[in-house]
């Protein structure tokens, strides 16, 4: 008998084409699907996720950190943390991995058209935001959005991801401002020193006609949200991404629920009004 249903749990063979070191423990992996036709057909939206496999070790979910406008390859910026990420960091260019997805919802870029955008990221939290930053800054989309401000911080200079983009590429784009900060003073660093939430208050971006998107460690997000409230941002103007442990990525394994929502299906992107309606269990 024929299999009755196509299998969404089966990964596609993929190759790590390039490994770009970002920090001491973050690499960006540039990945292509081995099936050229599948690569051509691939579509994702900014903020969506994909499941990467190192066979013999396991599978883990990552946000796709490259823009959908980049059609040649996908990028994943991954911090070395646990089993699968350590195995990924142990691979070399040319290694075969598995990939399935894309999964989850995405940043509602249609609703953001005509508005100014404020990105606030901390550490590896810039990875999911980067897919949207590169999407709105792409020539074909830039005209749809107003001013783009990016506030980004990390523990140290070494921990800042995407250095080429934050220091060179993005600031050179028209109507774009990038503010970076590190937690503690360092020699050779003449930029801002301090935590991201405090820096947000210092920069004090105006709330009018603006959408804010924030991603980073939970503690940073908590204080960023307090800062935003002081600056007059309304909940509807703020989006964040949530992250929970996942196994299947398709709403079956029961692991990433927050109340009756599944982060893999209903997230990872949530408006702050939605986050406030969720039971506080994330």
């Amino acid at each position, binding site marked *: 008998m024929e299999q009755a249903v196509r299998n969404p749990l089966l990964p596609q063979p993929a190759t790590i084409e390039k490994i770009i070191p970002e920090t001491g423990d973050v690499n960006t992996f540039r990945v292509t699907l081995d099936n050229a036709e599948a690569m051509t057909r691939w579509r994702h939206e900014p903020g969506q996720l994909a499941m990467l496999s190192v066979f013999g070790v396991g599978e883990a979910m990552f946000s796709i950190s490259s823009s959908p406008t980049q059609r040649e390859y996908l990028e994943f910026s991954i911090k070395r943390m646990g089993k699968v990420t350590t195995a990924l960091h142990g691979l070399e260019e040319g290694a075969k991995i598995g990939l399935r997805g894309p999964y989850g919802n995405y940043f509602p870029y249609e609703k953001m058209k005509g508005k100014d955008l404020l990105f606030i990221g901390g550490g590896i939290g810039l990875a999911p935001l980067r897919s949207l930053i590169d999407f709105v800054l792409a020539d074909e989309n830039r005209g749809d959005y107003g001013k783009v401000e990016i506030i980004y911080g990390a523990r140290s200079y070494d921990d800042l991801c995407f250095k080429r983009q934050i220091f060179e590429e993005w600031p050179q784009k028209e109507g774009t401002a990038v503010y970076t900060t590190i937690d503690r003073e360092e020699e050779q660093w003449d930029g801002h020193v301090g935590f991201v939430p405090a820096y947000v208050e210092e920069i004090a971006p105006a709330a009018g006609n603006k959408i804010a998107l924030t991603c980073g460690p939970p503690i940073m997000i908590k204080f960023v949200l307090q800062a935003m409230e002081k600056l007059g941002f309304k909940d509807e103007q703020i989006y964040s991404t949530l992250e929970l442990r996942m*196994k299947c990525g398709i709403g079956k394994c029961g692991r990433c629920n927050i109340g009756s929502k599944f982060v893999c299906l209903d997230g990872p992107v949530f408006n702050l009004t939605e986050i406030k309606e969720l039971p506080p*269990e994330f």
Partner: protein
Amino acid sequence: MTVKLINKDRFNVFLERLASGNELVAPIEEDGNIFYRRVTSVNEITLEADAFCFAPKGHFFPQYEVLYKYQQGSNALVLEEPGPAGPSVLLGVKPCDARALLSLDPVFDGNYKDAYYLDKRVKTTIIGLSCRKVRYNCFCRAFGFGPTSGEGADLFLTEVKDGYLAEALTSKGEALLKDYSDLFTETGVDGALQEKEQLAVQLDTQFKRKVDLDGVKARLDNMFEHPYWERLARKCLTCGICTFVCPTCHCFDIIDENGGGSNCGSRLRCWDACMFTDFTLHTSGHNPRPGKKERVRNRFMHKLKYHLDRYRVTGCVGCGRCIEKCPVNMDIIQVIAEIKEVG
């Protein structure tokens, strides 16, 4: 809907023929418990035993299932899926377990269809069976069905004095009656239907524990922060037996098993439980459900609220298994009553 009758002698022939033409899965007693297992000889089948019976969910969602095999060369990766399921017949399914499949279906269906579950689901014919007795912790009636309800089955049997009444409830059930039409008769069906009604009335008097779900969901909607969960969770051992015996629990883990060498093996899924400490543990060490309170709350919320919110069908069917097997007498019937008191 076709309704027929089959006498006891012919019923044995029916079983023989089902077992020879299909994969037949039926209740089989083993060490004082009943499991749904593939039948090798129809004499093993035990449709009317008193022993504790595990749910048949494992037929569709095995406790351990290979998703695919992988073989990784230096520049090639080969993934091999298991072959598709063959046709099977699942016999002797209790009303609660048939109804439980209707709670599981929307989980494994949806935008992303779980090929493993649905393939077996599509190819399995479910023969349900009315209960002959009500166990102490049974409370299916709270969920709007009872020990003679066939919902979820394709063909539904009720034992009567002359054999089994057989009601076809779906096209699969109709097909079965047609395929085996030489064994079934229409003679005596009216009397058997009356007997079934009497059985239903008689079983109705056997329920020992009163359960009323009215208002429970509404209370749970506002009970997330209630101190009750802390109190309730205190005695829980988080052993997970409640999820293991539950006919609607479906959480799973996905793991790799290396096949001797470093470059080939299997990726498989196995049952997992929201009661376990590391179920939701992040790599960073953060755990959204770090303690017993959070995990116990999640389980009861899931059974009586979350599943209902998401799929419009409850995540509990009142089978009473979790009550019977819990080593510390965690009792969902009592929890339901307490929610109504404290909520």
